């Protein structure tokens, strides 16, 4: 068998990239088809229904739910402020009335004669969706959002934390395997997307955050540093909503691991250019990986390298990343695709492939333990 399917991460100097910018609920779309937008431009906005506050009036008035309606001072649709009387008993001969002031401001949504419960909804919460990526609006979804397309260079990372941001790419390391430490971060990196090489240290992230960098990208990170940064041990890889003040992306994995040389060189080639990044990672169904998007002025001419390999196919000569010990992090080349399963050192039987390591040695690894470097 000369080919086999395996997934991989995308790293490419050019692709026509499309991103959907959708509101969580229906609202207004501010752009039209054909518009050119920039990353921080608001393309759609709406208001989320405000917070809901239930008020159990039957309990507070000490009466059956069915009697509550007779005591209501406000009705559905009315606006109430904190302290406004919402219900009042008739009292005895006009005296000894019990009044219920509202503890929240908002609009009375419902009053239930079945439960004696009033629902007050708070002020609407504004929500804005930005373009995120500079490009052209190619499709408008009325009331929902739009789709933006651009010619971009694209790097898919393996894991990230923090959400969408944008900035100028600045190289902090000179080599793809150079550890990214605090000493590499300078004050002029405020608002930048800092690109390192090997593992990023906790001090580097802290310093980047202190100078006001938008994002920090490098080959690896230590789990202990991530835990300290987040303040908790991440149990499942569903991220993107962290409020760290910086977006953090690793391209290869956890531990002492160098960024793939090709990725490093590519990002180096885009130093000084604007890019959009998103650390959101969701490693479950509907997988989402962090990304670095560099909009290009124009599509470059097709190079010899692009399209050499079929997407998702393992082929002889194709570069792969070993993603498990004992060769974790090594970029190797497929040298053989035996069809018969082999017995591993663990005793398990699995389908394997042969790879040529950078040292020139050949090794046999399970197919499950390599990842294609998609171009």
């Amino acid at each position, binding site marked *: 068998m000369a080919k086999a399917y395996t997934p991989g991460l995308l790293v490419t100097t050019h692709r026509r990239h499309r991103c959907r910018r959708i509101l969580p609920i229906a609202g207004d779309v501010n752009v039209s088809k054909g518009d050119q937008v920039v990353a921080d431009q608001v393309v759609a906005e709406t208001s989320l229904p405000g917070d809901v506050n239930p008020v159990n009036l039957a309990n507070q008035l000490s009466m059956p739910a069915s009697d509550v309606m007779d005591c209501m001072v406000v009705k559905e649709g009315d606006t109430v402020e904190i302290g406004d009387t919402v219900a009042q008993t008739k009292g005895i001969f006009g005296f000894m009335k019990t009044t219920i002031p509202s503890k929240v401001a908002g609009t009375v949504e419902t009053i239930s004669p079945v*439960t004696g419960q009033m629902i007050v909804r708070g002020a609407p919460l504004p929500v804005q969706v930005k373009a995120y990526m500079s490009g052209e609006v190619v499709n408008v979804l009325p009331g929902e959002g739009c789709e933006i397309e651009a010619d971009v260079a694209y790097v898919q990372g393996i894991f990230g934390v923090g959400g969408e941001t944008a900035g100028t790419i600045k190289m902090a390391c000179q080599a793809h395997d150079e550890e990214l430490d605090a000493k590499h971060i300078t004050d002029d990196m405020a608002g930048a997307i800092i690109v390192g090489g090997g593992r990023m240290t906790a001090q580097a992230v802290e310093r980047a955050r202190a100078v006001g960098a938008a994002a920090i990208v490098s080959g690896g990170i230590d*789990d202990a540093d991530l835990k300290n940064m987040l303040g908790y041990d991440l149990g499942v890889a569903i991220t993107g909503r962290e409020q760290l003040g910086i977006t953090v992306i690793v391209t290869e994995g956890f531990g002492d691991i160098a960024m793939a040389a090709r990725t490093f060189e590519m990002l180096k080639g885009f130093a000084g250019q604007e890019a959009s990044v998103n650390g959101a990672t969701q490693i479950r169904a509907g997988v989402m990986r962090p990304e670095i998007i560099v909009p290009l002025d124009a599509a470059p001419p097709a190079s010899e390298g692009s399209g050499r390999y079929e997407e998702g196919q393992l082929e002889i000569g194709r570069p792969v990343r070993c993603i498990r010990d004992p060769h974790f992090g090594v970029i190797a080349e497929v040298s053989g695709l035996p069809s018969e399963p082999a017995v591993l050192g663990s005793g398990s039987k699995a389908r394997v492939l042969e790879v040529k390591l950078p040292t020139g040695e050949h090794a046999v690894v399970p197919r499950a333990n390599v990842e294609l470097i998609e171009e």
Partner: protein
Amino acid sequence: MTDTPTLDPDKIKVILATDCGSTTTKAILIQYVDGGYRQTHRGEAPTTVEKPFADVTMGVVNSVTEIGELAGRKLVGDDGRIITPATDTEGCDIYISTSSAGGGLQMMVAGVIAEMTAASAKRAALGAGSIVMDVIAANDGRRPHEQIQRIRDLRPDMILLSGGTDGGTTDKVVQLAELIAPAKPQPRFGSDYEMPIIYAGNNQAQGSVSEVFSEGGFDLQIVDNLRPVLERENLGPARDKIHDIFLEHVMAQAPGYDKLMGWTGAPIMPTPGAVGDILQTVARIQGINVVGVDIGGATTDVFSVFDETFNRTVSANLGMSYSISNVCAEATMPNVLRWVPFDMDERELRNHVKNKMIRPTTIPQTREALMFEQAVAREALRLAYKQHKEFATTLKGVQQQRTVGDTFTQETGGETIVNNMKLDLLVASGGVLSHAPRMHQTAMLLIDAFEPEGITMLAKDSIFMMPHLGVLASVHPKAAEEVFDRDCLIYLGTCVAAAGNVKAGKTAFSWSFNGHSGEIKGGEMDLIDLPLGETATITINPVRGVDLGAGPGKKVEREIKGGTVGVILDGRGRPLALPEERTACQATIQGWIDSCDMYVEEEATAAV
């Protein structure tokens, strides 16, 4: 429901079944061979629900193509579809599938009292094969605005609302409806998708509940009360409705499922629902108590049938890949490492765990990596079983008839019905158990995590075939039963374990069968050969205070079955206790590993 053509079971000779899991899609081929149905080939491929593929059928076709190559039978046509009906050389007569991809079925349930109607609603949702994201109850300790915020944050596929017995007061359950409606919960898939709400509560409140959900984009479905009286649950109608909505709404929204549903000859079932069906069938036919476990990448499902009462729990973040980091966090690393008989660098290990989490499909290549993953698996299974025991209880809120003898027992309902001493069969499935290089490892993982007591048969679903058979049983029960008997379960052997007052180094029990005999001391284990297919009558004489099923110190004589591993004699006592001191712990573990032949040196043909 999806309309499916009716097939004549007698004409079904080639059956293709897939299970689309969150990590891999597993396909099996069942053929009519020599007068019976047998599982003949299997294949698997990564599931392709995620981008860039975003089409589950690609993984299905890849796994089926692998089977086709192995079987020498063309199963996928040039148009990329599965070929039906079968001819002598190609295609299948029926294609069926289960699914837990796309995160499976995710539900929120609500009930008035957490321990009563809400617990029953949770049981109904779990029994239907769902993951329960949260349980909202009037007495769950959260304030109403906190409950509403939680409902808003969740993105369930559907909501099951229950509360009240038939004819009882209506206001509490209507109050719950009034919390859910304004929260406007958003479904996971599709902005134009109306949130399905299943109401299975007090029948007197149906009108009021309908009114509450009449506006705001809800699709309200009313079924019979799942707790019509406190003393009885009626979970069937709610479970059936969950299955219907799963097919009509949820599956139709997941990437590629509309296409897949057009290919199958029977409705797609949620994977755990299918497993539950087949286990209940086995327990009923054989009249035994069964516990089944399926440890996956993201979750661990535990199923139990004790005295014909079925329970299922899903431990949402206890799994071996997506959730491996959570297992280590929840169990703590020292608890994981107590199962490893050598030193490991903790910083490196933590990074390995995270790397497995972000690249969930990798497999251990070295012996050390395998032993570490099996240590994590023991902890994941232990925690999942603990949660199961806490959930599988007698009905709460039921008045107990008490006699004078019960005066001091303080039992008021709600005790766990899981009794390890009454457990007859423990079935393992899921990658780390099914794909363990040696079945001895599977057996030891089960014993260490579940701590069965007395005499318990151990088995594994060799290639995770139970889901396929669960759905096959709905269209061809005979084929499902035959394959279950012949090919699905691999009997590992029998565990004979001492409970009670076991003293380290002192005799716990003596045993004899088939001319063999011996003594097991406290803290020791032994493995005695009894091949697959053979049975023997074992005689066990426990010392005073030690129980093997007949009571402390009482002799036991019972028939036991052999298996691929044999008879495991366990004198470690219950609950299992390991030495605190690391070196002593490593020596103890190594002793147990050696006693049970867990790992043996085999020639590895691949470089490591």
